[in-house]
């Protein structure tokens, strides 16, 4: 599944060659459209030549529709494609400065490179100015920092903000752009345009492009308005890809995984008494409503596991893909991370797992115990592979009775 660099299908050399090839094709297309010429670009601002608008939005539509459908057909995981983070205020101000600069320079960063490559000295002048502008920002960063980091909304899409689905938004943007294309093609707009003659595209090809775009957009809205397909979710549950073990979660927390979001579904009172470090309190209601960054790794836990499992289904139905829950809830965290126990007759494998657990326990301020009678160590306690299968419900029920006592003990130590 794509992206290739994420799946490791592409080595470092392969990635470098791909970068050059992609850039080459990009530069080629820009030059072919005439975007290496500043007066042609600037014509955009006086409605003489709408090449910039036409190129930009047909590119945007193509990539948007293509990405949506590749994702839907399971060929590309869109959550693994880098989504630029939103810093609303900084980007609004950046847009104002950039827009003014674009107007005066007649070239943008990409097209200035194309202009320079074709021998246009004004392209070099723009590049020089840009390098200086970036340097200016860097050396005076301390004065800019407040604005630069304000209103950090994270990686978020318009669909998430509006509370609609991605497909519906894709359809909305496509219809708006196709509508705009139609308007600028009308005689009253076309009369203003004195673009250098471009080879006009075959009208039949043009019609079929518009038809394909409209059909893909309508279908995008339609599939997203339909009920969510529950089958892949069922498969995930059957294949036990729905949960995470407490030690694995502990490693994510220790590793400082930025995408990690841990939610505690117990009552507020229980949450305030003790929770997994970094966890936030949530209810089924908030989880069914509030937007999360779409690339988030979400881990859910409750007292036992039922609520967390239900919340897991909710979030998966909402389209979040990396969602996991602690199968035995907070108990599992306490038993396997905070207070790991090693039986007197431990196997070598158990001992190896215990050593890992001791470090975690120390990190989170718990305490590990060695030399515990075998009867006090639940079956399947250490072997994470056998964990799900070997862990009988009886063990869970018996062990859970002691969660409260464990929590109380940890509280006394001032966790």
């Amino acid at each position: 599944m794509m992206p290739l660099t994420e799946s490791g299908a592409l080595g470092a050399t392969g990635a470098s060659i791909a970068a050059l090839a992609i850039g080459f094709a990009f530069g080629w297309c820009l030059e072919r459209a005439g975007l290496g010429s500043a007066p042609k670009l600037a014509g955009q601002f006086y409605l003489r030549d709408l090449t910039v608008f036409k190129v930009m939005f047909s590119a945007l539509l193509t990539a948007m529709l293509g990405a949506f459908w590749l994702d839907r057909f399971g060929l590309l995981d869109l959550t693994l494609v880098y989504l630029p983070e939103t810093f609303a205020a900084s980007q609004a101000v950046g847009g104002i400065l950039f827009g003014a600069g674009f107007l005066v320079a007649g070239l943008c960063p990409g097209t200035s490179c194309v202009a320079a490559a074709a021998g246009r000295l004004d392209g070099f002048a723009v590049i020089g100015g840009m390098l200086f502008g970036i340097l200016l920002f860097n050396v005076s960063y301390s004065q800019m920092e407040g604005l630069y980091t304000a209103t950090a909304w994270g990686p978020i899409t318009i669909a998430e903000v509006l509370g609609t689905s991605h497909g519906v938004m894709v359809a909305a943007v496509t219809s708006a752009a196709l509508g705009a294309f139609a308007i600028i093609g009308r005689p009253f707009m076309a009369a203003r345009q004195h673009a250098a003659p471009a080879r006009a595209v075959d009208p039949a090809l043009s019609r079929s492009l518009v038809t394909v775009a409209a059909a893909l957009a309508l279908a995008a809205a339609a599939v997203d308005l339909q009920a969510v397909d529950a089958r892949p979710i069922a498969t995930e549950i059957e294949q036990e890809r729905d949960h995470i073990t407490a030690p694995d979660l502990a490693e994510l927390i220790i590793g400082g995984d930025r995408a990690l979001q841990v939610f505690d579904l117990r009552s507020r009172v229980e949450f305030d008494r003790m929770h997994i470090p970094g966890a936030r309190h949530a209810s089924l209601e908030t989880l069914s409503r509030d937007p999360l960054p779409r690339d988030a790794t979400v881990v859910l836990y409750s007292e036992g596991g039922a609520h967390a499992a239900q919340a897991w289904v909710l979030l998966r139905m909402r389209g979040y893909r990396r969602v996991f829950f602690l199968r035995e809830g907070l108990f599992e965290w306490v038993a396997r991370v905070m207070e790991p126990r090693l039986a007197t007759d431990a196997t070598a494998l158990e001992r190896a797992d215990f050593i890992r657990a001791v470090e975690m326990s120390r990190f989170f301020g718990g305490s590990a115990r060695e030399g515990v009678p075998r009867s006090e160590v639940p079956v399947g306690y250490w072997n994470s592979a056998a964990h799900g299968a070997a862990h009988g419900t009886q063990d869970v029920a018996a062990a859970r009775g002691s969660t409260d006592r464990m929590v109380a003990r940890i509280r006394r130590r001032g966790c």
Partner: protein
Amino acid sequence: MKRYTDPYLAGVGIGLVLLAAYAIAGRGLGASGAFATVVATGMAVVEGPHTVAASPATAPYLTNGLASPLQDWLVLELLGVILGGLASAWFAGRTRVAIERGQGISTSQRLIAAVAGGVLMGLGAKFARGCTSGQALTGGALLSVGSWIFIASCFATSYLLSPLARRLWR
């Protein structure tokens, strides 16, 4: 000199290139990011790597430490843009040393405007965390909120100020 390609067709071409970037590299196109890497590397050479790596303005652009910026994905991609632009212009008979300008200004005025515009765009691209390629196209097609804020504020400003710059582009 060959005629230009139909803008819609060229746009579809760029869209497919952008889609390939998503599919291959898990990221989109960019231009200003590569310049930011060049500047950050230059600053690291002059001031020493520690101050540059400590500032949030430059640190993200030094991900390879002080290894050659040629190992950076965006820098390589921009190098490709330059080569692709050169090749296309060459085969279309459009390579020539010239200063392109509106008829109302001299070449030196054009160069001054180009530098000034470049400075503004450099600052703007830093605040926006990307330019017409990295934000408007790449983030726009992914429906990123910030990218669309950038698109709106960039074009609104250009059109609002365009009467003042009329002399530049007559």
